[in-house]
């Protein structure tokens, strides 16, 4: 069954590139499932594997697409039902690849289809025009030549898949690599031997030799076509998504201010993904709490050593640990991009951060919490920008507004995040208010999108604000943002 199992491993690899998390244990399960379910019924197999391998509704959708692409074959059932499961597996494996191939061939390149006919024709010289049967057709000497002219289709496909595996065709990342991989696979299949042979035949120049050389050439060209299709299929299976991964990786690191509008959608996706990760790590974090219901069981156990006298009491109650966050965002032109993502991030974390209050300001501070709750993220962003954005920045005004409106809500459990470049247009920084907040709140975190070296240059007041912050950090990429928020959740007590 090993061939069949290899196919499953390949399939799992394809799933992983499609962003479906599959663990090795699940791969084993899938193999076991395959043994139980068999290949006769494609729909059944698909349902079964979907149960074993994909674990969220989104993954299930992705799974279906992947499955159809991987096992693309309308003749799946008919071919395999002929060779029942009890037959040796490689045959069935061929069937997979084989059909994959044929479908692609007929879809994309009619030449590919013809190629198959030619390849098989080698096995039955009767196909060739009548007069040529007179002499004994020479049989080719090189491995590839033999395979092409005498081997059956299945073997050829198997060989191709093997070669593909050998050159790691699943590592293909960008479109332009297609040619490279096609050549690599051809080489791995023994193209050189075949070329030499064709050369030799042509040199010798006899009629049978010339005939054979012609046939070999034809077969070679058809094989090349086939390999190209194969690579293309692999590209769609593997690269489509890994290309995306690459892009995401890049976007995570790029400065938020350099992001272009067209990338916003991707970034949004990443933000949600990151937030989701944080949520699943941190939701339901608890710590033991020194008050609450008596845990009889634990107490009894613990006090048995004292002859049943209860003097070491154990308590049951636990406390859910969730920080209260107030987030103040500078939305003046220069930093608006950052605040956009910070707000987005915090909002996606709603499950672990139920009490996020958001404020936006250029000069006057305004609360946007309700706006964010009621409207869609994009609209809310746009409205915030319209109402508060693009004025000249005044941190002093913001701080005094904050003091008059929100100071009463700040308590020792509140974390305050301020996002801004602290460029105050040479106005009064009023850092004493921040000091007051600092004394009252649990934590004050300042996220500055500018590099540390420019924190004190020009009208930047970071030098005055920083001492009144528990933490002042550079934050200008998604990775930074993720780190800050993760810390926020971890340190919160």
């Amino acid at each position, binding site marked *: 069954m090993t061939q069949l199992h290899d196919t499953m491993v390949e399939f799992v690899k394809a799933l992983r590139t499609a962003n479906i*998390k599959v*663990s090795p*244990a*699940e791969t084993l*399960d899938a193999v*076991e*499932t395959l043994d*139980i*379910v068999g290949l006769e019924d494609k*729909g*059944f197999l698909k*349902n*079964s594997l*979907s*149960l*074993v391998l*994909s*674990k*969220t*509704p989104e993954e*299930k959708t992705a799974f279906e697409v992947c499955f159809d692409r991987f096992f693309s074959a309308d003749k799946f059932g008919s071919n395999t039902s002929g060779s029942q499961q009890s037959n040796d597996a490689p045959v069935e494996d061929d069937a997979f690849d084989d059909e994959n191939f044929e479908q692609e061939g007929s879809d994309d390149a009619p030449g590919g289809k013809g190629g198959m006919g030619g390849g098989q024709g080698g096995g039955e010289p009767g196909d060739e025009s009548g007069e040529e049967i007179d002499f004994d057709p020479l049989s080719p000497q090189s491995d590839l030549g033999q395979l092409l002219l005498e081997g059956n289709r299945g073997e050829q496909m198997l060989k191709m898949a093997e070669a593909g595996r050998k050159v790691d065709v699943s590592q293909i990342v960008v479109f332009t690599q297609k040619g490279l991989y096609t050549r690599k696979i051809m080489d791995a299949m023994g193209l050189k031997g075949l070329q030499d042979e064709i050369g030799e035949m042509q040199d010798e120049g006899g009629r049978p030799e010339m005939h054979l050389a012609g046939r070999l050439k034809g077969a070679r060209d058809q094989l090349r076509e086939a390999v190209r299709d194969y690579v293309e299929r692999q590209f769609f299976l593997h690269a489509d998504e890994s290309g995306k991964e690459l892009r995401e990786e890049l976007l995570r690191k790029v400065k938020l201010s350099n992001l272009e509008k067209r990338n916003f959608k991707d970034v949004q996706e990443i933000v949600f993904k990151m937030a*989701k990760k944080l*949520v*699943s790590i941190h*939701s*339901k*974090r*608890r710590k033991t709490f020194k008050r609450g219901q008596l845990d*009889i*069981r634990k107490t*009894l156990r613990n006090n048995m050593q004292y002859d*049943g006298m209860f003097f070491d009491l154990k308590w049951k109650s636990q406390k859910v640990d969730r920080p209260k966050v107030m987030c103040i965002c500078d939305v003046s032109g220069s930093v608006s991009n950052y605040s956009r993502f910070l707000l987005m991030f915090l909002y996606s974390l709603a*499950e672990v951060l139920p009490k996020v209050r958001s404020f936006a300001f250029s000069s006057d501070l305004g609360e946007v919490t309700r706006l964010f709750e009621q409207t869609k993220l994009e609209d809310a962003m746009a409205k915030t920008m319209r109402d508060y954005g693009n004025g000249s920045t005044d941190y002093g005004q913001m701080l005094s507004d904050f003091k008059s409106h929100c100071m009463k809500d700040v308590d020792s459990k509140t974390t305050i995040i301020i996002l801004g470049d602290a460029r105050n247009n040479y106005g009064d920084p009023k850092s004493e208010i921040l000091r007051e907040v600092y004394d009252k709140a649990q934590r004050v975190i300042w996220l500055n999108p500018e590099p540390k070296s420019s924190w004190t240059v020009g009208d930047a007041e970071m030098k005055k604000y920083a001492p009144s912050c528990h933490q002042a950090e550079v934050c200008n990429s998604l990775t930074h943002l993720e780190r800050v928020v993760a810390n926020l959740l971890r340190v919160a007590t």
Partner: protein
Amino acid sequence: MAIKHFERLKDVETIRSHFEQQRYICSLEIATAVFLAYHLEKPVLIEGPPGVGKTELAKTTAEMLELPCIRLQCYEGLDESKAIYEWKYGKQLLYTQVLKETLGEILDGAQGLSESVAKLHDFGDIFFSEEFLEPRPLLKALGEKESCVLLIDEVDKSDHEFESLLLEMLSDFQLSIPEIGTIKAIPGKKPLVFLTSNNTREISDALKRRCLHLYIPFPDAELETKIVEARVPEIPPKLNLQLVAFIQELRGMDLKKVPAISETIDWARTLILLHSESLDAELVRQTLNVILKFQEDIETVKSELQGVTNRALKAS
């Protein structure tokens, strides 16, 4: 795993027809899940919106196989003493009292401390033994002689720690009790485990990895019609089609809580009670509170009632 009536799990179609006999109409996916759960000996994690028959699936499976169904309802704060086992503390305390009194007898004739300790060791200790063990659902499920269906309901309501507690049970069908050792399921009689989740929070990957994952969505119109027919056999086919079409349309609307299958069935029963033969706007208006549970939703739907009803009538 040879359990009673295992032949009813022979293949997917058999499962489906047996489910149908139990008046549980299921899709191919659901039957496949039950099939694989048995043959791979793996638990099934069922997710989906509330009221699509997640819990019902486990119960029906139990009925179909004529096995006992042991149910563990999860909630915040559920811990091992309620899910796995508990010691009978009262009896344990009594036992120590008894022991104290017989201590003299046991140590009778012992010379020196070391000999006494040796004698004490020889004395069979049953303080931590199964005699004093109070099995809770999970442990009970392992001990069932004829296998059983174990339903761990709304696992998302439990705490993170509890999830980890389940892992041992789910992957190896065994539980460890520190004082006694590991208790394993009777070979060949492993329980069929179903976990349900309403997705109020993300289930951990570790747990998901050990389970088959079944997502039950709202059924399509055809399937829902069949379900209503199976559950409320006395419903006229025409009314059935109409009300399913109506519900299907509601699901497409922007509601706080869309009606699930259970609501459809309730509604069907209501309409039967009212001796209705066909839907009309007035009837719907009066019975809307059966299918919609929020005043807001009722208001939303009422405003479009006539249109939706007309379309539902046309669909039948």
